[in-house]
C-alpha cells in the first residue's frame, strides 16, 4: 500500500548537483518548495538559476534527487523560457499560439469556438485580449512575455516555471506582470517557481526566496532570506531591501550622486573619465 502523500511540499530537491564539461554549475542544492506558493530564485548571472529550472522540468541530467511529494508523479508543468526566438516571418497568430498547447486538433483544420473562447479567456487573464489576432512575430517584448504567460496558463499547470519572465519589460509593465501572475496563481492554485532579478518585487510578491550562487546560500521567506549580508554575498555590492537590516553604510556615489553601489568600485571616484556613467 503506497504511503500517503504529504501535501505541503510541491518540489523536493535533495543534493542536486549539475556538472557540465568539467564545470560544476550547481553544487549540493537541497530545498523544499511549498505547494501553491510563489518561490523566486535570485542570484547573479551564472549562478545556476536557469539550470535549476531545467533540472526540475527534466531537461538536463543531474546528480541528486528531485521529487514531487504533493503530486506523487511529476505534475502537469508549464515553462516559459528566458528567450523565445520567434520567427518574424511565421504567420502564427496569438490565438493560434494559445491553442497549440493542449489541443489535439491541428491548426490547419481551423480552431473550434471552444478553443477560441479558451484562448481568449487566458489572454484576458494577462490583459492581452486585444492582441488575439496579431502575429506572434509582431509583438513587442512586453506583449510577447504576456502572451507566453497566457500560453502557459492555458495549459492549467500544477507547476509553473518562469525564467526571468519580465526581462526587457519596463517598470510598470513588470509590476503589472507580477500582479497578473499573483492573481492567476490565486485563481488556478498552481505552484510558481520563478527566476527574477527584481529584488524589490520579489520581496513584495514572493512567499519563498532561494538565494543561489552555484550552491544555495539561503532559503526562506523574503524578509529572512533577502538580508543585506546574503545580498552582499550574492552580488558583491551593498544592497539592503529592509531598513532595519542595513548593516553597512550605503553612501551615495561621488560621481553620479545616486545609490548606484559603485562606492567600493575603484573606477567610480574617477568621475572625470566617464561623466554621467552610473557605476
Amino acid at each position, binding site marked *: 500500500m503506497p504511503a500517503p502523500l504529504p501535501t505541503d511540499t510541491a518540489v523536493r530537491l535533495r543534493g542536486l548537483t549539475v556538472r557540465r564539461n568539467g564545470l560544476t554549475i550547481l553544487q549540493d542544492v537541497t530545498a523544499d518548495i511549498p505547494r501553491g506558493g510563489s518561490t523566486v530564485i535570485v542570484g547573479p548571472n551564472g549562478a545556476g538559476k536557469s539550470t535549476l529550472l531545467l533540472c526540475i*522540468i527534466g531537461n538536463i541530467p543531474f546528480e541528486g534527487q528531485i521529487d514531487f511529494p504533493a503530486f506523487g508523479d511529476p505534475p502537469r508543468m*508549464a515553462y516559459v523560457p528566458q528567450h523565445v526566438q520567434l520567427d518574424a516571418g511565421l*504567420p502564427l497568430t496569438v490565438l493560434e499560439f494559445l491553442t497549440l498547447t493542449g489541443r489535439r486538433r*491541428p491548426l*490547419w483544420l481551423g480552431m473550434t469556438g471552444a478553443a477560441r473562447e479558451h484562448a481568449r479567456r487566458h489572454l484576458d487573464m494577462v490583459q492581452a485580449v486585444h492582441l488575439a489576432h496579431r502575429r506572434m512575430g509582431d509583438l513587442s517584448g512586453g506583449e510577447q512575455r504576456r502572451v507566453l504567460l497566457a500560453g502557459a496558463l492555458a495549459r492549467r499547470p500544477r507547476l509553473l516555471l518562469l525564467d526571468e519572465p519580465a526581462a526587457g519589460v519596463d517598470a510598470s509593465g513588470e509590476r503589472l506582470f507580477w500582479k497578473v501572475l499573483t492573481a492567476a496563481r490565486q485563481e488556478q492554485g498552481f505552484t510558481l517557481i520563478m527566476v527574477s532579478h527584481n529584488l524589490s518585487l520579489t520581496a513584495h510578491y514572493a512567499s519563498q526566496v532561494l538565494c543561489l550562487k552555484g550552491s544555495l546560500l539561503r532559503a526562506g521567506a523574503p524578509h529572512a532570506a533577502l538580508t543585506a549580508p546574503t545580498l552582499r554575498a550574492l552580488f558583491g555590492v551593498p544592497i539592503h531591501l529592509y531598513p532595519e537590516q542595513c548593516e553597512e553604510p550605503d553612501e551615495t556615489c561621488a560621481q553620479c550622486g545616486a545609490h548606484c553601489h559603485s562606492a567600493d568600485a575603484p573606477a567610480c571616484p574617477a568621475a572625470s573619465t566617464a561623466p554621467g556613467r552610473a557605476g
Partner: protein
Amino acid sequence: MLESLSALLPDMLPVANALGRLPLDCLHVGFMQQAMLAILLLAPMTAALGVSVITFRMAFFSDAIGHSAFAGAALGLLFSLDPLFTMPAFGVLVGLCIMAVRRGSLLSADTSIGIVFSAVVAFGLAVVSRTPGMARNMTQFLYGDILTVTPAELGFLALLALAVLFFAVIGFNRLLLIALDPVMAGAQGVRVAIWQYAFAALLSLVVMMAVRAVGVLLVTALLIVPAATARNLARSAGGMFWWAQGVALFSGVAGLLLSAQSWLGTSSGATIILVACGCFLCSALLAGRQGHRRG
C-alpha cells in the same frame, strides 16, 4: 524478397487511367497519366512537410538528404537491389544520422549537416566512379524524370501520402511548438526527440521520392518554394498550410501540363519549379505592397 514487398504496394494504375478521362490531350497517354498522379500525390506531401522545413530552418537538411540519393541508388546498383528500396532506406538512415549529430553535439546545425552531407556525397561518388558505366545511370537522379515513374513507385507514393497525412494531423501543432522552443515544448509533455526523429525520417522518404520527380538539384525547391510563397500570402499558421497546398498542386499540375506542350518542350521537373518560383515572385510583390500599405 523485394519482389514480395512490391506486391504489397497498392495498385494505383486504375486511378492513373481515370485521369485519362480529363479533357486534356496530353493525358491520353499512359506515362502522362502516371506522372500526373505522381504529382497529385507528391505535391501535398512536399507542401505539408515544407511548411515545417522552413519553420525549422531545415532547407539544408533536405538538400543533404537529396544528395544522399546518389549513394542510395549507387548502393542499389552495386548490390543489384532495386533503387526504389535502397534510396529511401539510405535516405532515412542519413536523415536519422544528421538528426542524431545535430541533437548530440555542440556543433551548429549547418556544420553537422555539412559533415554528413559531404560524407554521403563523397561515398556516392566513390561508388559510382569505381563502377564503369554507372555514372550514366546516375544522371536520372541529378535531373529527375517524373514521366518515367513506375506503377510500384505510384503505390509507394500512395502509402507515403497516407503516412504524411496522419503525421500532419497528429504532429503539426507539436512540431510548431518544438520549432518555437524545444525546452518549452518538452516541459509541456511533447516528446521532442521522438517527434524530431519521426519528422527527419518522413522528410527523408518524401525527399527521396521527390528526387525521382525533379532531381537532386531541384528537390529542395519543391519543398521550400510553395511553403515560402504561403508565408507571404497567409495570415495564420493554419492558412499557411493550405496556401502551401494550393501553390504546390498548382505548380505541379501546371508545370507538368506546360512541359508536355510541344511549343515549350522543357523538362517537367524544371518547369514545375519555375512555375512555383513564379508564384513566389507574385506573392513577394503582393506581400511587399501589403507591407507598404501597413507601413
